Every structure is written in C-alpha cells, then in structure tokens.
C-alpha cells in the first residue's frame, strides 16, 4: 500500500509535467507540424508565458526582491490570457522580419530570441528579479482545496492512513485535472483549426509554398498567424508550469528543457498529428524519467548522469529520424486514403496502420 500511494502520487506529478509539455508540443505542432515553421526557440515563448503569468497573478515584490513592478495578484485565467498575449506579441516581432525568408533564418532568429529573452530575464531585475527568479507564484484555488482536504482528514480520523495520504495530495489531482482540461480544450480547438479551410492553407504552404502563393493565398500572413498562434499556446504552457512549480528563474528555461525535448516529443509522437504530439509528450517524458532511474543505478557522478540522459535523448531523436521519421502516430492523409479505397473497391484490405 505504501508503494501504491507513492506510485499514484508520483504518477499524478508525472502527468502534470507531461501534460504541460503536451501543451508545448501542440503549439509546436501548429508551427512545425502543420505549417513547416522551424522554431528552435520554444523555450523563449515558454519562458515569456511563465513570467507573464507570474507577474500578472503573483504577489507584489517582497522586501528582499529586486523588482520594482509586477505582482498584481489577478486571477489565474487573467494570467493565462496574459501569458498567451505576451508570447504572441514576441512571436509577431520575430516573425515579421524572418518569415519571408528561407526556413534557416527563422530557425536562427528563434535561437536568438530565446537566448535574448533569457538574458533579459537574468539582467532586468526590476521586472524579473534577475537570477533569483520569481517565487511564491500562487497555484489557483490552492488554499480552499488544500484546507478542504485537510479538514476532511481531520474530521474523519478513522480513515486508513493511506487514504489520508492520498487525500492530502488532493491539490495535485485538481491541478492535473486543470492541465488535462486545458490540454483537451486546446486539442479540440486545434482539431477544428487544422480541418478548417485555414488549416488546409497551412498544410498547402508546408507542402508547396509557391503553389499556395499562386492560388492567391497570402503565404506570409498565414505563416505569421500560425507562428503567433503556436507561440500563444506555448505561452499558455509556460503559465501552467509557473502556477504548478510556483518558482521560476531563467535557468528553468534552458534550451534543453524548453526547446529540445519538445522537439523530440513532437517528432517521436508524430509530426502533423495532434494526438501524436500529446502521445509524444507523455512517451518522451516517460523515457526521460526512466533514464533518471537507470542512471541512478550506475556508478556515475550527478553531472555525468545528467549528461548521459541528454545523450540518450539526442540519440533517440536521431534514431527516430532515421528509422521512423513519421513518428508513432503518422499524419493521416484521410481524404486521400478514403478516395483511394473507393477506387480500389471496398474488397481491399485496410492499409496497414
């Protein structure tokens, strides 16, 4: 029972993180999966979202805090919207000069913006408290839920101890539900989007930009919209992260955790498939967590173990690119497949998954 409680509590914690990554992965899928925009500065938009949410919803500067402004203690949802808006504005600024050019320029510019954002977070203490980061970011409804759970335990002293321990972690369960709710809303929103005429234009741009332009589509404008919308989703991911861990600093948004792992998630899960994006987030986060257990049993120093885990993730990416570039859940060209089936007659066996 002891072990079971530990596992349940851990799984909830795991799923919150993986779900937050699922949000980032969905945002990247809109940019890269559907539109072919090569953004390797995910961490920048993620960080901006987290800081925006923390500044809007967090407490005002403390005495030992270097900040001069921020901390308006506004509701969680306001912070979520602010995170999306600020991340979207950053994407707009970065998209305007780069989206008319070859994909390489956007890639380099996004590395640059992610790095510049990290420098701003480190250096502009009046806004971000520098390297000390922002603390005591409130988790939504933490007080009532936690107090309620504790009161329930106190009023039922006859409950077995393991039930009590489960209930005492009720807040994490609530937050998981919140993350999954946001993830579901975004998933269905994305599904509507990509199956709309707007989404079909994005895919047309990805496949053959010139052809899309010749059909009278304003390629630049569509790319910009996809970049901004994807960044807004990443900003929401940042807000979810900030409100859960309650402490953020520039180091939380290094390229590895902020950008690279999200790419591996999307590519492993299935580029251009929203279910794949979410599946990839849970799978890669699972692998990442598992490598922690494995390297823990090897005779390695902490830095060596960390380096080895990252090497494993890097190799995983290369193996996926070489062996299964379409990912676990490939993008299904639904229309084409069904029309092919019709032509071939219904007697044909269904295509292999």
């Amino acid at each position, binding site marked *: 029972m002891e072990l079971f409680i530990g596992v349940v509590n851990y799984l909830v914690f795991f799923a919150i993180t993986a779900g937050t990554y699922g949000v980032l992965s969905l945002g990247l899928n809109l940019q890269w999966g559907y539109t072919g925009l090569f953004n390797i500065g995910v961490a920048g938009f993620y960080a901006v979202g987290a800081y925006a949410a923390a500044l809007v919803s967090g407490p005002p500067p403390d005495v030992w805090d270097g900040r001069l402004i921020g901390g308006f203690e506004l509701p969680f949802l306001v912070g979520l919207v602010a995170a999306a808006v600020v991340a979207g504005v950053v994407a707009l600024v970065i998209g305007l000069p780069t989206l008319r050019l070859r*994909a390489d320029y956007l*890639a380099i510019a996004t590395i640059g913006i992610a790095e510049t954002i990290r*420098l701003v977070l480190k250096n502009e203490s009046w806004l971000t408290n520098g390297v000390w980061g922002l603390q005591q970011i409130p988790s939504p409804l933490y007080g009532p839920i936690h107090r309620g759970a504790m009161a329930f335990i106190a009023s039922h002293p006859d409950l077995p101890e393991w039930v009590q321990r489960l209930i005492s972690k009720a807040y994490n369960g609530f937050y998981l539900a919140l993350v999954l709710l946001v993830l579901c809303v975004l998933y269905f929103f994305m599904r509507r989007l990509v199956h709309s005429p707007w989404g079909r234009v994005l895919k047309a741009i990805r496949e053959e930009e010139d052809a899309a332009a010749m059909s009278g589509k304003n390629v630049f404008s569509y790319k910009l919209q996809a970049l901004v919308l994807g960044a807004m989703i990443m900003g929401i991911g940042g807000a979810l992260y900030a409100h859960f861990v309650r402490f953020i600093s520039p180091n939380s948004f290094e390229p590895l955790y902020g950008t*690279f792992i999200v790419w591996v998630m999307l590519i492993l899960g299935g580029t251009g498939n929203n279910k794949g994006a979410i599946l990839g987030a849970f799978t890669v986060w699972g692998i990442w967590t598992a490598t922690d257990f494995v390297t823990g049993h090897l005779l390695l120093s902490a830095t060596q173990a960390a380096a080895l885990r990252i*090497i494993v993730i890097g190799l995983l990416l290369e193996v996926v*690119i070489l062996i299964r570039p379409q990912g676990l859940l490939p993008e299904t060209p639904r229309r084409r497949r069904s029309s092919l089936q019709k032509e071939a007659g219904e007697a044909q066996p269904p295509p292999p998954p």
Partner: protein
Amino acid sequence: MDLLARIPQLLVYGIVSGSILSLGGIGVSLTYSILGFSNFAHGDTMALGAYLALALLPAMASLGIGGASLGPLSFGWDFVMALLFAVVLTSLAIVLLDRLLFRRLRTAHRITLMIATVGVALALRNALQFVWGPQPHYYSMTIQRAVQVPALGIRIKPDQVFIIAAAVLLTVLLHLFLRYTKLGKAMRAMSDNAALARVTGINTERVILWTWILGASLAAVAGILTGLENKFITPELGWQMLLSIFAAVILGGIGSPYGAIVGGLVVGISEEVSTAFLSTGYKPAVAFGILILMLLIRPTGLLGRRT
C-alpha cells in the same frame, strides 16, 4: 572621452574574437552552400576540437615534443602538435558522423537535417560534459603579460597576435584552395548548382566528404584558439558562440565563405565595442541585434547572392 579612449583597445579584442568567429563561420557557410542545410552542431564541433587538443597535450610531452614556450608565446611545440592532431581527429569524427547519420539523410528534407544537427549538437556537448565535466579546463596556467603598443594606444598579448596570424593564414590557404585546386573548383561548382555539378561528372560524395573535413578542421582550430584566448574551455564553449557565428554568416551572406570572414570581423568587433555602451550582460544579444537588423535591411548579406 573615457569611452572613446577605450575603443582602440576594444577594437583589438574585437579583431581577435572576430578572427575566431570567421574561422567558425567558414565551416557553417560551406556546409550550407554545399550540403544545403544549417549545421547547428558546428559550435559543438569547435568544442570537440578544443577538448581533443586538451587530451592530446600531455601525450605530446611523452612523445618527446618540447613544452618550452615558443618565444613570447604562452605555449610550445607540444601545443602546436596537439592542435594538428586534434584537427585530424575532429575531422575523422565528423566524417564518421556523416557516414552514420547525415549520409542516410541525403535525400531528406533540409529541415529534417537541421533537426538532426540540433540532436547531434546536444549529444556531442553532453558527451564532452560526460568525459570532462562541466568545470573549466586550462591549456596552460601561465599568465601572459600584454605588450604595450604606445603608438596605437593599445595593449596586445603575443598569443592574440598568433590567433590573428593563424586566422589570416588559414583564410589565405582557403582562398588558394577554392580558387586553384580541382577539388576547390568542384566545391564551388557544387555550391552553385549541385545537380549540374553531378551531371558534369563531379563526384559529389567526394566533395561532400571534403566539405566536412574542411569545415571540421577550421572548427577545431577555432575552438582551440577560443581556449587560447579565453584561457579556459568548457563544454558550452561552442554553443555559446553559435549565435554569433550564425549572425556573422548571415551578415556576410549565407553560403559565401568570404562573406563569413567579413561578417565574423564585423560581429566580433561590434560585440566588443558594444561593451563600452551596453551592460556586458547583453554582449551575446548584440549578435542577435545585428542579425535582425541585417534580415530587415539586406537579407542576402553583404557578399551574398540573390537566390
């Protein structure tokens, strides 16, 4: 006035770091123009070269290569030989990587290749971290005194003169190679039009092989010179310079090795001179500023061709 008085000295630092950026940029530019993708692992290739030289340095002494300082320089023949061996080993490692990974992706989309290079960058950097740890390592613990040049109002270390001279020498060699050798001409032909080059009988795989070797060699030299200038190396050495290198390459015109040299100098000098006006915390962002400015004004770069 105090600000202006510092500028000649900052120019010297800028030319030194610009020389290193140029060497790094040439490799990025060659891979881009001949293989057709941006190599985000180039910075970490530099770090690999720097660490291989570090590992080879003690071995040189056991081979009987003297460690006595060469004239006013801080290093001896052992360092020079370690540099040469590190260049060879780095090239071999990158050629092996091409065989294992990039060769299988020749027909893949450019962006797939770029993603693959991002993966290589991360794996390589952490492999260095795994072996040598995150702490700084030193080629030599001797502290070199700068020499005053009163006529110009500057101070410069003999090692810095060596760095500039090495960069100039390699640039001239590269120019002669691209201009006069058969392989160099084949490289230029392939960067102009790969399909046409293949039709005319150029062995494109061989050109690709030598592109990797050339890029990796210059990267290794750049990484080692960075270690010489900074006095220490860390696994992050190359990644930290990658943005500046790309800014240099784009500024010069992506795909043009000569542009990379000009761009490297401009970026190096701008970064150093900026410290007279900006908080040094923002030095890495200067390259980014130049990059965005250039993309807005002239995306083809100073010496680039319109595509």
